[in-house]
């Protein structure tokens, strides 16, 4: 009997420990680049000198992370997760859970720094949450929305519906659908250039067709303005003072374009890369299959350095 009680206590203790698992604390003033590794559900934190300094191994099937305006609160979400988990980087532990239900595949902090757009694929809608995780508005969009992008000028949210052939544009003031325009299916990856009235959309291609092009639509009307060759499967865009970068995972190619949409550089980089970001004037690409990040010179797109991270880096999280 006594033995049984001891065992029960031990189990309770262990479970308790698990609930308040503490990870390496991340100083508030430390700039970092973190990879969201979805194969082993971990986060690898890398400092400004590209040295990994922390590894958070999280026992939840999360597929993405979002850093809030305080630069310390981090949200972890995943399609199979019932709750969005809220972590404090400086405390190195989970501090809250937001009950959202399953289906969250993407989260974006809006420009006001308080509202969050959460993309829910289970009911094909966008949830607008406040910074306490409370649902403010829900807007129905097309099938399987995935990518969202906020336009500052017209205060709009562009929703790329991955499983549909349309892009839904939401008026953020009224939280109503402004308009929709047709796009190619299995689209993902966007770049909004409001001053040029352009929205760039990439994709994987439909069925057995492998996407070779990226599409430029009018941001205000949805009119297809241009198609650019970027074989194969362009899924990530990045614009900086140096130019526009296009990442195609099918051929692990990185293209650098100038203002005239001309290809100025082209490199094979990474192994099946899905993610790209600009960090400290460098361009960083995450190789999903090689579990590495590739640090490239923004000008020449030559790989300067590679850093080994957790398994399956799928997203990059920056704090500068």
């Amino acid at each position, binding site marked *: 009997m006594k033995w049984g009680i001891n065992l029960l206590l031990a189990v309770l203790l262990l479970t308790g420990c698990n609930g308040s698992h503490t990870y390496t604390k991340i100083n508030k003033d430390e700039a970092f680049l973190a990879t969201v590794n979805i194969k082993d559900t971990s986060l690898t934190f890398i400092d400004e000198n590209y040295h990994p300094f922390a590894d958070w191994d999280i026992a939840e099937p999360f597929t993405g992370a979002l850093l809030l305006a305080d630069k310390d609160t981090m949200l972890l979400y995943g399609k199979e997760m019932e709750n969005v988990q809220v972590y404090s980087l400086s405390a190195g532990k989970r501090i809250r859970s937001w009950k959202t239900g399953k289906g969250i595949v993407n989260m974006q902090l809006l420009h006001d720094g308080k509202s969050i757009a959460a993309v829910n694929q289970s009911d094909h809608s966008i949830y607008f949450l406040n910074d306490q995780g409370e649902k403010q508005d829900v807007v129905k969009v097309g099938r399987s929305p995935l990518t969202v992008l906020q336009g500052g000028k017209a205060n709009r949210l562009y929703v790329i519906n991955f499983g549909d052939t349309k892009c839904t544009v939401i008026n953020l003031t009224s939280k109503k659908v402004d308009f929709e325009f047709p796009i190619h299916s299995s689209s993902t990856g966007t770049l909004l250039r409001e001053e040029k009235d352009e929205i760039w959309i990439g994709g994987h291609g439909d069925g057995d067709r492998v996407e070779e092009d990226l599409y430029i639509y009018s941001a205000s009307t949805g009119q297809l303005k241009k198609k650019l060759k970027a074989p194969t499967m362009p899924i990530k865009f990045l614009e900086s003072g140096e130019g526009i970068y296009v990442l195609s995972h099918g051929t692990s190619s990185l293209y650098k374009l100038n203002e005239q949409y001309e290809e100025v550089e082209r490199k094979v980089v990474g192994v099946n890369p899905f993610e790209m970001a600009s960090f400290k004037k460098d361009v960083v690409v995450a190789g999903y299959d090689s579990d590495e990040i590739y640090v490239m010179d923004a000008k020449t797109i030559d790989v300067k350095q590679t850093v080994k991270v957790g398994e*399956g880096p799928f997203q990059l999280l920056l704090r500068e």
Partner: protein
Amino acid sequence: MNDKWQSLTFKLWLTIITAIILSVLFAYSLSQYYYKNLYVEKLKTDLVNEASLLGADYTGGEISDDFKEKVEWFNSKNESEVFVVNSPRELSACLPFEINYDTLISEEERQMLLDGRAVEKEGYEKRFGKNIVAAIIPLIDDEDRLEGIIYTYIPVDSITDLLKEFAAKWLLAILLFLIIAIFLTTKWLKKLVSPIKEIETAAHRVSEGDYDIQLQVKSHDEIGKLAQAFNDMANSIHLEEGRKKEFLENVAHELRTPLSYVKGYTHAILDGVVKNEEEERKYLQLISREALRLQRIVGDLMDLSKVDGDSFDSSKTPIAFAQFIEDVLSKYEPIIKAKQLNLAYELDPDPILYGDEGRMEQILHNIIDNAVQYTNPGGSIQIRLVQYNEECELSISDTGIGIPKADLPYIMNRFYRVNKARSRFDGGSGLGLSIVKKMVEWQQGRIEIQSKEKIGTKVKIWLPTIKEE
């Protein structure tokens, strides 16, 4: 009905049929095992080898058309289907995005290939709409990119169909085989068990007193031997029963004769047939003699019954045999003298027996009585005692009338007489020698009688002795 389930036939039948069914099942599983483990595994190994050989030609970088053409050429000449795939879509490169497309390889397989391992598959492939055995090897460039794969497969539908057809035919054959096996087994078991049933019936008949029954021994196996043993047993019982009957007849006969004398003479006296006192005395002497005779027969019978029944009342003591014989012989001196016989003896003083004095004396009496009785006046009796290692030999020989050769084997049987006329005057009860034999055997000894008609008889007895301390 219940008997039927408990019968030996049913049990044997069940055992044999179970064994057959188990063997059949075992054979079937074995064939399946061989198909799976030998054929399919070999196929997989061959496919992996084949794909690996082709893959060895891949030199890195983007997969060239030249390489694809080479593989295509090989495919056209080859038995198995071989092709190169480099579409990232087919290679599940778009995971973790949920593309609505059935890719050629799964996420796990992609991971295996990325790790440089070959993938082996077996089963139904939706893409080809058939059952296949396949091997996939990765084409990985220097920077660990999965540029493509070599996919090779062999449809096994034909083999599966063949196996199914085989299984169906096999099942039919098994069914037929089982029916025949059940039929033959039943018949054979019936044949096998029928002698046992015959023995059972015969045993019942024997228990009811029918000893004439003889089973036909058809085989030389255990059952045949059992039947033979049964026959022997029935014969023995029959013989014993006959002997018992004969013995009782003999007893009755032996008792009846003296009783008739007693009865006759008594009546004669009582009826006053006797003429004078002398005659009456003669009659009374005859009655007395017959009464003595009756007493002796009854005494002998009792001894015999005791020896037979192992209830022999005995008190064993060490006996100095030579002295013992001399003492017995001294009692015979008057009779021998009267009958004018020569008695010679040569007795080794060594033998010491451990036996019952009364019984030993009876043995000697019975033999010497016979010797005296059947030796004519002027004849001689010789007695000899010799000690051997652990036993002594006593031989008593006479020059009497001897025993005919034909009678010799039966001389020690109860009531057996050489003189079938059963003269009351020359014979005893007919039990003497059988009693001697029983008593010698009871003392762990043995007896032998040698005889020649008109020359003489020699009785030899061997008895175990004890060593002098």
